[in-house]
């Protein structure tokens, strides 16, 4: 993992001290709310429906066990004993007191964390493939690139007041788990024909009220040219992005209104003008950062584990968890294990302080003290010996964290919705809870197979409903909550925006509609066919009809 140098540490501490002074001045009245609001937002502090909310950055979703324990401590000491892991690999605390926030930020700085640029019209926390560095299909670990961009973009004077917020995601694998085509900039680390490393660059993707798939701006930008190229994109956006209308201010609008070719040309024109002398030698900096991400000292193991095989035969519940919640690791004898934060009836992404500590302890014992946060609001143990999976599962069971539902129907992604969010138009968590209860049976879930259900409580789409196989959007209709269902969304390389199905449903009708659709799919699917494949074979109109079929 990356470790702060003296500059990083001083920078973060100085920001905490600045914010402490700003809070003190706010509480004494020296700063008005209008003056204070942009300052608190620059430090991740929102005012929500019931309380303040502090969003803490988890750079590219990577956490040490030490950091996870500190997040638990903060939840218990300053909040109400839990935190909410978000679709952008961050964590949010829903109940901090304003006076405590500087102390929280100091406690975060103790473990090299902060809340800088988790809000505001700036470059936000860079996200990445949660399996970075360990995925069997990976070309190159994307985290050094994410860290390079994080450092370059932190308090960047030119890009701190953009037309709108700006999100960058990086993957290093051909299978996109970082949703790069729906980001303002999406990067995929690749090698060119000469064996040089660089990035495929996408821009202009996004969700929200105007979902758009990004366009490819470059097939290959060499790694030492990456920051100048990103700077060129940022500069075109900063100059040409709309500032007259908040709803048309994201780069996706600029790219799609300008046209991909013209936008690409503008970027290359700007790229030719970028002053590289203002940047540090990127190859040296990348080399310095990469040293922090060297693969750990893995034990040399055979890939197959007799202990694992025996345990799977002995315990069918464990076998199911292994089938559903583990993924292929690049190192023989190791596995990636997913900890689901979607227990039956739970709030998606929530973890109590006790649960966070349990995950940290398990990471220390079995995953080289490292964890990851996924965009699906789950936690990853990236380095588990296959022979130790049974011990991991047993401990997760004891902690109530062994739900065998990763990427299945009850692994529902949900924004906080109207239960917390002041922007929301409808609740989303109770809908997710009802779905997880309705489809709680583990065997049934596995039989249904992979399916993404994503719920947003308003058009801003923090629950990523546009890219769910089944997307649910909560809206207000004639003074009541109503839910619009979309089908066919896809966050991966075969990116697609879900298509609206028809009239919305009242809250009490959503789960019934989904159940009708799932029963239809189970009846109509061909052997081995996933929900997504059945959807594409039968078509939208046929599938959507099942939502509205008579009872």
């Amino acid at each position, binding site marked *: 993992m990356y470790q702060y140098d003296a500059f990083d540490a001083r920078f973060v501490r100085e920001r905490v001290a600045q914010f402490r002074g700003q809070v003190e001045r*706010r*509480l*004494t*009245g020296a700063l008005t*709310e209008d003056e204070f609001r942009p300052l608190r937002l620059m430090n991740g502090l929102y*005012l*929500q*429906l*019931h*309380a*303040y909310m502090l969003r803490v950055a988890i750079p590219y979703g990577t956490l040490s066990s030490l950091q996870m324990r500190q997040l638990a401590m903060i939840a*218990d000491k300053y*909040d*109400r*004993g*839990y935190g909410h892991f978000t679709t952008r690999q961050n964590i949010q605390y829903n*109940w901090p*007191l*304003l*006076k405590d926030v500087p102390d929280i930020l100091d406690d975060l700085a103790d473990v090299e964390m902060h809340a800088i640029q988790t809000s505001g019209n700036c470059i936000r926390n860079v996200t990445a493939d949660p399996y970075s560095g360990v995925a069997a299909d990976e070309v190159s670990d994307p985290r050094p690139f994410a860290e390079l961009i994080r450092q370059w973009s932190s308090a960047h004077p030119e890009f701190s007041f953009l037309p709108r917020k700006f999100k960058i995601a990086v993957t290093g694998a051909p299978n996109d788990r970082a949703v790069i085509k729906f980001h303002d900039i999406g990067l995929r680390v690749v090698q060119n024909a000469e064996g040089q490393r660089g990035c495929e660059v996408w821009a202009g993707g996004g969700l929200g009220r105007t979902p758009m798939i990004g366009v490819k701006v470059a097939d290959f930008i060499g790694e030492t040219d990456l920051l100048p190229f990103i700077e060129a994109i940022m500069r075109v956006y900063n100059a040409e992005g709309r500032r007259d209308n908040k709803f048309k201010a994201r780069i996706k609008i600029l790219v799609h209104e300008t046209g991909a070719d013209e936008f690409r040309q503008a970027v290359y024109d700007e790229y030719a003008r970028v002053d590289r002398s203002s940047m540090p030698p990127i190859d040296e900096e990348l080399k310095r950062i990469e040293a922090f991400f060297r693969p750990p000292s893995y034990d040399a193991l055979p890939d197959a584990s007799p202990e694992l095989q025996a345990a799977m035969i002995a315990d069918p519940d464990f076998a199911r968890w292994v089938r559903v919640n583990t993924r292929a690791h690049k190192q023989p004898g190791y596995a990636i294990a997913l900890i689901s934060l979607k227990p039956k009836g*739970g*709030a998606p992404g*929530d973890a*109590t*302080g*006790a*649960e966070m500590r349990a995950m940290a302890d398990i990471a220390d014992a079995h995953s080289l003290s490292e964890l990851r946060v996924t965009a699906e609001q789950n936690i990853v143990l990236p380095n588990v010996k296959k022979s130790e999976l049974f011990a991991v599962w047993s401990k997760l069971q004891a902690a*109530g964290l062994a739900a065998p539902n990763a990427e299945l129907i009850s692994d529902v992604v949900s924004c906080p919705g*109207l*239960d*917390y969010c002041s922007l929301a*138009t409808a*609740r989303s*968590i*109770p809908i997710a*809870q009802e779905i997880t209860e309705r489809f709680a049976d583990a065997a049934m879930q596995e039989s249904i197979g992979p399916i993404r259900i994503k719920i947003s409580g308003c058009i801003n789409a923090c629950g990523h409903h546009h890219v769910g196989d089944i997307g649910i959007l909560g809206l207000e209709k004639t*003074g*009541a*909550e109503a839910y619009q269902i979309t089908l066919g969304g896809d966050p991966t390389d075969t990116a697609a925006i879900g298509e609206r199905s028809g009239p919305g449903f009242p809250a009490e009708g959503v789960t019934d509609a989904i159940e009708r659709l799932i029963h239809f799919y189970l009846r109509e699917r061909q052997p081995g066919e996933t929900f997504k494949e059945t959807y594409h074979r039968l078509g939208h109109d046929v599938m959507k009809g099942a939502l509205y079929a008579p009872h």
Partner: protein
Amino acid sequence: MAKKNSLKILTANQLLGGYSVFWTGADWSTDHRRAQVAHTPEDAAALERVGKASEAANEVVGVYLVDVDLGADGLPHPTHYREKMRVRARPSFWPDAADPSGVRPFKAFVDRHAA
């Protein structure tokens, strides 16, 4: 959010904790049922002036009027579902009896979740 010619109460977020508060006519309360009710546009305008003054005094932020009806108990209750959610001071899926102050650790929730 507030409609013309309906009953209204004044709400805001308390500065220190951010939690929802309601103007009683004398002070801010976390209990909306204690709120002073404006029956006329003039009453509502007076409430808004109180809110602006309280904002200026750094007691609260985000002052606005909320439409209410008088319930069977004779007390004001919001008419819109968003405001009904807000006066609960907790997520809708948490039990009713928990943590009415909106500021203390919510131990029952943690215990239930950890159980």
